[in-house]
């Protein structure tokens, strides 16, 4: 017994193979490694398959999936679902569910659209700088309020959240339809649109992408050093130095690699041409080649070519928002009392109650937070589409729940991580956009997505049984 205890207290000292020793020493979540491997495998498979079906578009393995353009788009498409998934993790960890997020997204997006297009636009003048600010505040406030209402019904009226939010799923989309009068509300305010990632103003460019990425690397190193210093201060067992260095290196490589990819996605030629002309940037002469994404002058005409002027897009606003939300939500989940209580309630609601935690009020807060995040996603989605419709969030609840579950959140409660759920969202979106790239019919895509969800949870069950 005591030997077993020692081995678990000092994992680095056991006589396992090198891989196990590496995993133990770095304390990396093996489940996360599995997800990352699966993600890369899916990416490679799509790249190869798209290469076979449609020819080479510059992908790493001869297809069109592993191109900066596709990966950049993938990140933007994932942002909205990823933001909501971070909130869904806490909801599910607390043994609740929120089926209404899709309809709620439609509702708050339409409300924000109506406010911009029919109210503020005419009264303040189209393009007035206060419009986007007021629209954002209204959307976030409405989302938070609806979420709190869901939470109130669940916690104080004691209606199961499944029923409350199933009702919301049906009712909120009806409200959205009435608000929009069945129409598409468009166009959005031009500053508001920046948050959608579709226009040059929402791309931060290579300089800021590198700056932010290096800052993120510094943060990783700081976190590791600080954690070690704390453990030294209290004389706790330490990770070996090589493991700490490896962790810092892996984290930094991932951050900088992602930055390199998004920076190498060039502005679309037409936009780059306009930008160059407006800012008096000379476009170098060159030879036309339709496969290139740079622009050059062939005689008097601006054409696409391999060598010439390129403007890197860098990260787009939705991706930055999603990163920020992911970081903040991870912080809330692991470093704050609120997060600790959410997990404790999920682990044993009775115990949490006896420990003096106000579980009802906590439930309201968690649902309100979910509503706030739905508001953030509504802003991203409607800005991206440049329109709001009552179908904007249709089926989003299922993708969000699926992403959280694929990311390792247990429906039994008490277990789940924010980063896992974001990876889950990326995995789901990769499968969907990969199949889109292969021109697979929508019906077939649905079959695959549904199957992947079930298989992912099945594999997770096997993993959890064997890991103990």
């Amino acid at each position, binding site marked *: 017994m*005591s030997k077993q*205890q*020692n081995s*678990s*207290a000092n994992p680095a000292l056991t006589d396992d193979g090198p891989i196990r020793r590496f995993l133990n020493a770095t304390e990396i979540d093996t489940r996360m490694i599995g997800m990352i491997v699966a993600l890369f495998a899916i990416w490679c498979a799509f790249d190869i398959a798209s290469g076979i079906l449609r020819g080479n578009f510059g992908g790493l393995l001869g297809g069109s999936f592993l191109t900066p353009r596709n990966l950049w788009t993938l990140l933007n498409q994932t942002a909205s679902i990823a933001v909501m998934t971070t909130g869904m993790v806490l909801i599910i960890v607390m043994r609740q569910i929120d089926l209404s997020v899709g309809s709620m997204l439609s509702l708050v997006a339409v409300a924000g659209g109506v406010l911009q297009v029919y109210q503020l636009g005419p009264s303040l003048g189209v393009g007035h700088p206060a419009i986007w600010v007021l629209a954002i505040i209204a959307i976030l406030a409405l989302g938070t309020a609806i979420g709190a209402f869901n939470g109130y019904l669940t916690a104080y009226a004691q209606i199961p959240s499944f029923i409350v939010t199933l009702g919301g799923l049906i009712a909120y989309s009806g409200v959205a339809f009435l608000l929009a009068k069945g129409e598409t509300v468009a166009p959005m305010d031009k500053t508001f649109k920046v948050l959608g990632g579709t226009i040059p103003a929402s791309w931060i460019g290579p300089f800021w992408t590198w700056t932010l990425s290096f800052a993120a690397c510094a943060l990783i190193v700081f976190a590791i050093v600080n954690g070690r210093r*704390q*453990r030294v*201060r*209290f004389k*706790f067992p330490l990770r070996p130095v090589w493991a700490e260095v490896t962790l810092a290196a892996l984290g930094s490589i991932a951050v900088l690699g992602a930055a390199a990819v998004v920076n190498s996605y060039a502005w679309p030629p037409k936009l780059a041409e306009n930008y160059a002309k407006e800012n008096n940037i000379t476009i170098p002469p060159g030879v036309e080649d339709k496969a290139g994404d740079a622009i050059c002058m062939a005689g008097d005409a601006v054409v696409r070519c391999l060598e010439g002027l390129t403007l890197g897009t860098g990260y787009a606003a939705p991706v930055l928002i999603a990163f920020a939300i992911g970081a903040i939500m991870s*912080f809330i989940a*692991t*470093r*704050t*009392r609120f997060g*600790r209580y959410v*997990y*404790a*309630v*999920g*682990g*044993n609601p*009775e*115990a*949490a*109650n*006896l*420990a*003096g*935690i106000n579980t009802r009020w906590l439930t309201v807060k968690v649902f309100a937070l979910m509503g706030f995040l739905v508001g953030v996603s509504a802003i991203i989605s409607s800005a991206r589409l440049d329109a709001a419709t009552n179908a904007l969030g249709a089926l989003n609840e299922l993708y969000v729940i699926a992403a959280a579950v694929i990311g390792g959140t247990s429906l039994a409660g*008490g*277990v789940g991580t924010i980063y896992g759920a974001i990876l889950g969202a990326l995995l789901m979106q990769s499968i969907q956009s990969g199949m889109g790239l292969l021109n697979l019919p929508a019906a077939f895509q649905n079959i695959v997505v549904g199957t992947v969800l079930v298989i992912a949870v099945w594999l997770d069950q096997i993993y959890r049984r064997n890991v*103990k």
Partner: protein
Amino acid sequence: MSNIPLIEMRDISIAFGGIKAVDHASVDLYPGEVVGLLGHNGAGKSTLIKVLSGAYKRDAGQIFIDGKEVAINNPRDAKALGIETIYQTLALADNVDAAANLYLGRELRTPFGTLDDVAMEAATRKVMHRLNPNFRRFKEPVIKLSGGQRQSVAIARAIHFNARILIMDEPTAALGPQETAQVGELIKQLKSEGIGIFLISHDLHDVFDLADRLTVMKNGKVVGSARTSDVDHDGVLGMIIAGKCPPGAIPGPGALQSAA
């Protein structure tokens, strides 16, 4: 011992859907004293104690601490008054580690308002070392711990915050003989520090070993109370089974009238 009881529960009643789980029960506890609460399953002892720990809200009755009436409406109130409870079910959040359970509801925080996990773990290591020197599994969720280890986490939580009144509901039910002896030692030590302890137990030997007085309940009513030195096992069994008060015990409202 002073004359003012540390805790006095007077005429406590609570009913669940028409069933009187506790019916005009009164108990008291002096500083540095261990009072055993005995009775069948369903006699109302756990319910009575949950009224004191704030888990249940009483329908009637008063609670006095140091002679002053106090309001206990939820577990937070009870903890604020220095009443700590070790529940029979342990009431641990299974998915988080020992330190998180120890500090559940009163986490230590850094100047930035974030959880100070390192400080909590350090304090947990200290208190756990006192209770269970072999315990090393500070990083694992408590569901992975053995019954005895879980029990020591629950006990650590109760004694770590300078409790004045400790409620132990079947504290040794999940333990082996050696660990049971450890808990006995602990109770004696806490007692010497002036802490008052309510000990709920099925085990007569435990109660006679550790308790100064005992109170027996039956069908929600107090059968009687006695100093452990004034009664014997058979007499107490008679109280538990038949509600009959032996000589030496002070009969309560639940005692058989003819027995007096």
